[in-house]
């Protein structure tokens, strides 16, 4: 990266460290004529973090973003930046900038003027110098005099980012900015975005429906569904210990097996909940059991499910199931994905790395199934087992 770009990045980070303020949404609600897009949302985004709002389309994540930008007016609730309330502030009076989903570059202005737009409105001095620095940060300094329609999707995306970033907003809002790019470009831009965020140190709020994208980039993810936040935490926290079936299914994939809590056992390693699962007793650490009595869903991630042909030794200190039959095998290169029909008529997913330890098992093979208890989680039976299931396309 060039020197000029370095100094642009530094200036931005100096500022944000000096006066970084957190973004706080309190009981934020948005009702439209026929439905409620956002229901009493409470959220705090600490200064300088990369925050992702993740959810399927129509979950209210874009509406939330637009309320923060000032493009939609909340029905009730408040938005604060530090101690200042900005709930009803005009969009052009907020230290917040947006990268729009379709980029929304001004087609009648060239790239240089697009990026300069915000600075010119605020009557900032040495605009040209700053624009050049910003364009070199996104590696587009040679394209400054082109018009947006002459550029590729990836280039337009970077112009949109530069146009927002140059204003050094306290919060940068990204509305599915990578949605229109093809897979390869998207991966590249994800890394690029994360790098820029680390360099400039601003607060990024990123809206996306792509769970992989959210996990790759964000420090904290809030999973949204029908206008409410289902769960919030670091990517690893959400993935390893989901609190609802929606999160379990939407963020990665999960096996959810019906069971009933039989007892809670105290041990030196902490409390363990014992669950009767179709006649087999399995144990789940108490801090991963989100229901303590009655029925529940035992959850286990497919890559944590181990299978071995009948009689072979299995790594299973506790949870061991027998009587499975392989019904489907998909070889995907780095791993093999098995479907195993269990005696109670449910197919479990098991993903196995192709380490070459043993050959790929054939369909029809009788197998034993196991997993380590510390990887399992328990969810309330009242939740829909299919909530958040992502259809493979």
């Amino acid at each position, binding site marked *: 990266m060039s020197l000029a770009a370095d100094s642009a990045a530094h200036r931005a980070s100096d500022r944000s460290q000096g006066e970084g303020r957190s973004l706080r949404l309190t009981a934020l609600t948005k009702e439209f004529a026929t439905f409620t897009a956002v229901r009493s949302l409470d959220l705090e985004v600490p200064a300088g973090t990369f925050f992702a709002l993740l959810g399927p389309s129509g979950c209210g994540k874009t509406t939330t973003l637009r309320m923060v*930008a*000032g*493009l939609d007016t909340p029905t009730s609730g408040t938005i604060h930046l530090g101690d200042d309330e900005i709930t009803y502030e*005009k*969009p*052009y009076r907020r230290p*917040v*900038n*947006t990268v*729009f*989903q*379709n980029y*929304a*570059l*001004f*087609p*009648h202005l*060239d790239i240089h003027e697009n990026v300069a*737009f*915000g600075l010119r*409105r*605020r009557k900032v001095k040495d605009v040209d110098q700053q624009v050049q620095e910003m364009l070199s940060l996104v590696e587009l300094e040679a394209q400054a*005099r082109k*018009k947006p329609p002459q550029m590729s999707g990836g280039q337009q995306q970077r112009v949109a980012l530069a*146009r*927002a970033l140059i*204003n050094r907003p306290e919060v940068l809002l990204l509305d599915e900015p990578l949605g229109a790019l093809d897979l390869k470009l998207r991966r590249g831009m994800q890394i690029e975005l994360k790098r820029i965020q680390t360099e400039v140190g601003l607060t990024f709020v990123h809206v996306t429906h792509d769970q992989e994208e959210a996990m790759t980039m964000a420090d904290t993810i809030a999973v949204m569904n029908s206008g409410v936040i289902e769960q919030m935490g670091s990517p690893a926290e959400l993935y390893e210990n989901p609190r609802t079936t929606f999160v379990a299914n939407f963020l990665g994939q999960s096996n959810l097996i019906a069971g009933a809590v039989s007892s809670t056992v105290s041990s030196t390693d902490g409390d363990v909940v014992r669950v009767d699962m179709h006649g087999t007793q399995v144990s789940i650490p108490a801090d991963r059991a989100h229901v303590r009595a009655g029925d529940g869903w035992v959850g286990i991630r497919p890559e944590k499910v181990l299978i071995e042909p009948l009689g072979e030794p299995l790594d299973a200190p506790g949870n061991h199931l027998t009587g499975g039959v392989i019904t489907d095998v998909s070889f995907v290169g780095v791993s093999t994905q098995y479907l195993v029909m269990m005696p109670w008529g449910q197919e479990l997913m098991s993903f196995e790395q192709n380490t070459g330890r043993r050959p790929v098992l054939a369909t029809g093979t009788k197998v034993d199934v196991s997993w380590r208890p510390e990887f399992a989680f328990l969810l309330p039976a009242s939740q829909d087992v299919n909530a958040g299931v992502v259809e493979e396309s």
Partner: protein
Amino acid sequence: MSGLQRAGRWIGEHLVLAAGLLVLVYMFVPIAVVMLMSFNDNSESRNVYAFRDFTWSNWANPCRPDGMCEAVVRSIEIGLLATLVATLLGSLAAFALVRHDFIGRSVANTVIFLPMASPEIVMGSSLLALFVAGGFGGRLGFVTIFIAHVMFCLSFVIVTVKARLSGLDQNLEQAAMDLYASEWTTFWRVTFPLVFPGVAAAALLSFSLSFDDFIITNLNAGQSVTFPMFVWGVAQRGIPMQVNVVGTVMFLISLFLVVGNMLVTRKKVAA
């Protein structure tokens, strides 16, 4: 054999070109005749449609026929005024129809097309009835022509500006507001420059519609004479060659505007 095939292919390749050229010739022959006739010296002849001698005198004395230049000036005045008012009102109406949801919007969108769809003779006579009923019967003239022209230009302006406006991504305006532009600045920096081609097209269309109109104008003109009415009037006695001068000038102005627009657009794309 191969020679025949080659000939066949040559014909195939050039047939489209030939047809295109023929269409162009068909379109431009009348204009060429008008241009040619503007240099015709027919002062000796009664037959206006025969080219006798070349002369500059029609161009040197364009206002020689009685009342012609007054009619041209009147047409231009009415055209400019009607264009200004129709473009202004029509653009505002287009914004309202595209940007605001109000009761009766879809009805309004349909009704807009009525003046374009109904026969001019009907519009003209009903306007006349309206003016007479309103007590303007004895005062038909410049003002009534102007009002009539604004009326029929409005539909065209609204439709043209609406088309441009509905193609405009509203995210652009939101992006401008997000980038510290107030509503006023957003309009002048983003909305207006992007809608302007539509407004300009609407204005040009309005002017030529107004300048050209005969039927509605004739019914509502009273004693005033516009250029089309003048031509109609003198046509029965023999059209003076100066009419061709006016025609040629109008054609050259349109040509200039079209080519200029093309050059500006191309420069913008290349830049």
